[in-house]
Each structure stands twice: as C-alpha cells, then as structure tokens.
C-alpha cells in the first residue's frame, strides 16, 4: 500500500471529454454527428473522500465513471490517479493501475458470470495479478466473503443461489480483492429493495472506515447520495453544473437544476409533502447529440433569460471555494439578496 497523503488529491479529472461518433454509410462510415456524452468535466478527489455523482439517465455519469476506470478511451482530457496520468497508458501498463482502482456495477444479476462459482469470481482478480499460491488465494477469498458479510461456506455456490443484496456483496468482495484505493460504484443499490439497500449502504460505509477507501458513488437517488457522500457533483447533459459539500448542496442549492432535482424527490412525510413547493420541470432532457447552445439547461429552466441562450456559464465559486456552480442566475445569493421569489412554473 502506498502512503496515505491525507488531503492530497488521489484522483484529478481534467477536462475529460467523451464523444461517441454516429456513423452512417456502409463503406465509408463517415461521421455524421457526435453524442456529447461527457463534455469537459474536471474535478479533484481527496483520499478517503466520497464523491457522489448525481443526474438523470443519459447525463453522462456512467460514461464518466467508465472513462475514469479507462473502460472507455477518452476523446480528450486527462485522468491523474495517484499522481500519474493514466489516460494514455496502453493496456499492459494499465494493469497495475487497475489494482488501485476498481468498479462495482449496478446490476448484480448481469455483472456476475452465471457459470462461475462465487469462489472463482472473487479469486479471478487475485489470480490475474498473481497474489499468492492456491492456498493463499483460497484463504483470501474466505476473508473477503467474511468482510462483506457472507458466509465463507458459500464459495462453491453459483450467483443464482443468492438474493440481489447478497450478489451485490459478492460484487463488492470482488472489487476489494486487490486492496484498491479508489472504488467507483455505479448505482450499486438501485436494483435493491429498500430494506436491503440500507444494509448494503452500511456495508460500504463500514468498509470505507476499515480499509480507508475512496469512493465515487453514482446514484440517481438523492437521499442515498446525501447519506454516503462528503461532496456531491450534479451532472446535466454531459457537464457538471454544481459541486458542493453534501449538506450544503441540500441546504443551499445554487443551480436551478439542482433545486428542481431536490424538489422532485418524493418525501415520505404527508404534511411536509403537501406543503412544500414542487418544481416540476417540463419536457425531457434534450438530446446530447445536439445539446442546446449557451447553458444546456436553459430550455427547461424557469429563471432563464437571454444571456443563458447565448453564453455558456463557467463553474464559479458561490459562498465558499468548495461550492461551485455554473449558472448565470445562481440561486440563494442574488435571489435572496434581491428578495425576489420566482413565479412557480406550475402555472406556466
């Protein structure tokens, strides 16, 4: 294990872009358009921190995760992991990097090979990276199973013999096998039932304390993200529109999209739910093939003015240097100062 530089950036993501070409024609395959899945995203991640990544489907959060793990080649930009730019490394030299950087996937049914026994699934990374002889590997697998709350007797079972929550634990055990420093969890609890979801979240929490892990936690459930994250990044159409310390984001959202997202989360409290203002965003997320000019959120934004259709707002700090957002009409500041309350879009 490398020495822990507490507070230092374990991961730096700089101007990462990922565009998928859309090709037409059989022979020439000329490129007719591009899906701007991730468009110029930058952030830092400190060691031991959890960064939550939220946004609606198609906003590019999973693509970004896969770019960081180098499961996709970047279109441009760089990913600096533990002081090293890994964005251009060839496959062979990527292998030692992957030891430190692992992923947990959303679908516990699709991400485990149904023909392999649990023991094989978890020991595969150990064998690939030559972590000891057969006996040692066997011992490590048993330890890993115990670590994630499964019985070591289960090594010879197949994935279908487990429930969804247990399968997700197997996925976590596999990710932990090589003692990674960073785990990217892509919607790890979305497929699970409420009562099981809480168990897996607590497990991830405990593992972080025990093994001093750093997480990137992707989810669309804002309640779950708030619970696990130290900082949260909100994405919309391939861009980060706001990054902030977790509690602050919920208490004082700056970007209108963040505000709308938060207001759309149903709250399990009837009276509160009746009282609070519901901002219902009209329409769907525009196509990332031709994102709107200026601020990408402007066609659905209730505060949008002329400037929003022309100029793309930069990410700037609001209140504290940790809280940045990209908006021409940031909430909570100008608005609170001006004392103006916006008209509800409900009547629009």
């Amino acid at each position: 294990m490398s020495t822990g530089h507490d507070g230092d950036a374990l991961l730096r993501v700089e101007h990462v872009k990922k565009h998928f070409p859309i090709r037409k024609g059989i022979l020439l395959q000329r490129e007719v358009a591009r899906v701007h899945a991730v468009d110029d995203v930058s952030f830092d991640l400190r060691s031991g921190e959890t960064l939550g990544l939220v946004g609606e489907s198609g906003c590019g959060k999973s693509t970004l995760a896969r770019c960081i793990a180098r499961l996709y080649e970047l279109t441009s930009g760089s990913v600096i992991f533990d002081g090293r730019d890994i964005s251009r490394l060839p496959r062979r030299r990527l292998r030692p990097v992957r030891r430190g950087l692992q992923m947990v996937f959303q679908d516990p049914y699709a991400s485990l090979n149904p023909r392999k026994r649990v023991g094989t699934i978890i020991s595969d990374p150990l064998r690939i990276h030559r972590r000891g002889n057969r006996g040692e590997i066997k011992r490590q697998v048993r330890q890993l199973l115990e670590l994630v709350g499964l019985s070591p007797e289960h090594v010879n079972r197949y994935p279908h013999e487990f429930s969804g929550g247990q399968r997700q634990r197997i996925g976590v055990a596999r990710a932990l096998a090589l003692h990674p420093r960073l785990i990217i969890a892509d919607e790890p609890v979305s497929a699970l039932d409420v009562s099981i979801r809480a168990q897996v979240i607590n497990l991830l929490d405990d593992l972080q304390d025990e093994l001093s892990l750093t997480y990137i936690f992707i989810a669309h459930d804002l309640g779950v993200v708030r619970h696990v994250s130290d900082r949260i990044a909100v994405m919309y159409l391939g861009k980060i529109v706001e990054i902030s310390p977790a509690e602050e984001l919920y208490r004082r959202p700056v970007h209108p999209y963040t505000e709308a997202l938060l207001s759309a989360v149903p709250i399990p409290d009837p009276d509160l739910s009746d009282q609070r203002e519901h901002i219902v965003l009209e329409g769907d997320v525009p196509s990332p093939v031709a994102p709107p000019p200026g601020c990408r959120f402007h066609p659905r934004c209730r505060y949008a003015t002329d400037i929003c259709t022309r100029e793309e707002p930069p990410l700037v700090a609001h209140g504290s240097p940790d809280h940045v957002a990209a908006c021409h009409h940031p909430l909570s500041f100008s608005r609170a100062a001006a004392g103006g309350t916006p008209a509800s879009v409900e009547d629009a």
Partner: protein
Amino acid sequence: MAEPLLEVRNLKVSFRSEDGVVKAVDGVSLTLAEGETLGIVGESGSGKSVTMMSVMRLITDPNARFEGEVIYKGRDLMALTQDQIRGIRGAGIAMIFQDPMTSLNPVHRVGWQIAEQIRAHERISEKAARARAIALLNSVGIPHASERVDDYPHHFSGGMRQRVMIAMALSCSPDILIADEPTTALDVTIQAQILRLIKELRDDFGTAVVLITHDMGVVAETADRVAVMYAGRIVEQGSRRDVFYQPQHPYTWGLLGSIARLDRPKPKRLATIPGLPPSLLNLASGCAFRVRCAHRFERCLQTPPLLDRLGNGHLDACHLEPQAKKDARAGAAPPELVEDAP
C-alpha cells in the same frame, strides 16, 4: 359509508411449482371508494402486483389457484368468464405497468393502439376513434398530439411512453386506474410529471386509483389511504397520515426507518431490517415478519389477524398491544446524527 367501488375479499393466490406451493397472496382484503387513491407498498415479492393482476384476471398460469371474491359493481370478477371480464378490462378497470418500453406494441403506431382499444369497447368509426386518440394524447400532455399520433413507440422517451400508456388506459373512461409501479423506470423529474398527471386525472375525472409502489415517498405524496404488504399479506392499512405518523406494524417502522431521507438530519448509520424477506414456498404459519422482528414474542407463532386495534379504522396485523407498540417506538434509541454545521 357508501358501497365501495371495488372490494377484494380474502383473496388467495397460490402457484404450484416443482418445489411446492408458493402462496403469493394469502388472504388479502381491500376496499376502494369512488375517487379514492389507494397506495399499496411493499418490497419485491410481497404480492402487491399479483393481487392487482388477479383483480384484472390477468394471471392465466395453469398452475395458479385463486380463492376469494373481487366485487366490482355488484359482480364477482373472479366468477366471470374471460369474455365477460374483457368487457370490464379497459372500460371499467384499466391498468398501466411499470415498464412503458415493453407494454406498448413496437410495430404499431401509438394512435392505432389507442384506437384499437376504443373500438374494442365501442361501436365507433375508425376516424372518430383516431380523433379520440388525439384528444387523449393531448389531455395527457403530449405536445403536437395530432402529429405524434402516427409515431411508433420507439419515437417516444420513457416518460412520454408512460403518458401514452395512461392515455390508452383512460380511453374508455374507466372508474378505476391500477398503476403498477408507474414511475419506477423513470427519472425523478419525469416521475414528478407523471405523478402530477395521475393526480390531475383523479381530480378532473374522479377516477379511483390503485398505486402500487415500493417508494414510501411516492405514496406519501399521492395516496389517500395506504396498505403495506409483506409476504403475501397486508400487515398495515390506514389513512396516509395514520400510517406515516402512527405506524403500527414493526415492518412499517423498519421500512420508514431504512430510507435515506432528505427531510431529516442525516443519521450516522441507516437503520436496517436484518435478514431477508422469507421465501413464500411452504411458508410456516405465524407472523411472517417475526424472524426479522426485534419485538417478537411467543404469540407471534400464531398468525396475527388484520384488526382495527386502535378503533379508528387504522388496521394492523401485529400481536403487540397498542401501548406496547408505543413504548417500543418511544424506547428505541434515536438515530445518532452526524454533527451538523449550522
């Protein structure tokens, strides 16, 4: 109290399988009043979908066995022939499903699919049915409905497809709309649009709604009454405020406790319900929740009936005395909170 619009009496649904009998629904009784929204919550496998699919007589598995009655407008739906039930499906009771991607036919234009249903129930010309389809698409908020009526399902986004499903369900002005996880496959902002639409339908047309969901937040926002299901039974049923503010069943406590909530300070750890939901295969008698329950005692070996223990129409299936429940909830240690900066 007026005659309920729909009454389910002691419905039991079981499936024979190689390994034994699966009791998917084990004695469910429900009522639905006119214009009311009933939320049914529970986890996967709790029997919430099977209950409503049985009401619609949509389960045709030869291994399924049904018991009990479903009374709608004085008729027992369980006793009707498939021909008779077809007259009620769509016209009296309509249903929308979780996955709007797979519940529309991909090879037919959406307008045609809506018109087909109208023409199945009414003698009406193709042209008039098409006009109705356009009006319906308009009423569920699909922009440029007169053009989009000729689009195929793949031309629509997930939220728009769910709107098409709702338009189709409303085409014959049903009294009851059964919505089975209508927003689970959708993003939160689109979910908000669809829930608002369902609320408007109820207000504008007086349609009674049965909303099946696993999301307590969705229920809190839309339902008038709530039924909580666990392992094929209703364990608690009452008004929305009663169930959320005075939950009586330990399972409901657990469900409410294990949600990461935005409206409360953040706890250090989420409360969990230990263990897994039981297998419905050869389920032993007694309270099905007892193995996961912190408050179990000897009586839990007997199956607890769903009773109005408080005398206010709030039913629960737990042997604990109301006072004991109060003490248990008051005695539970409050969650340790993360220190919170002001």
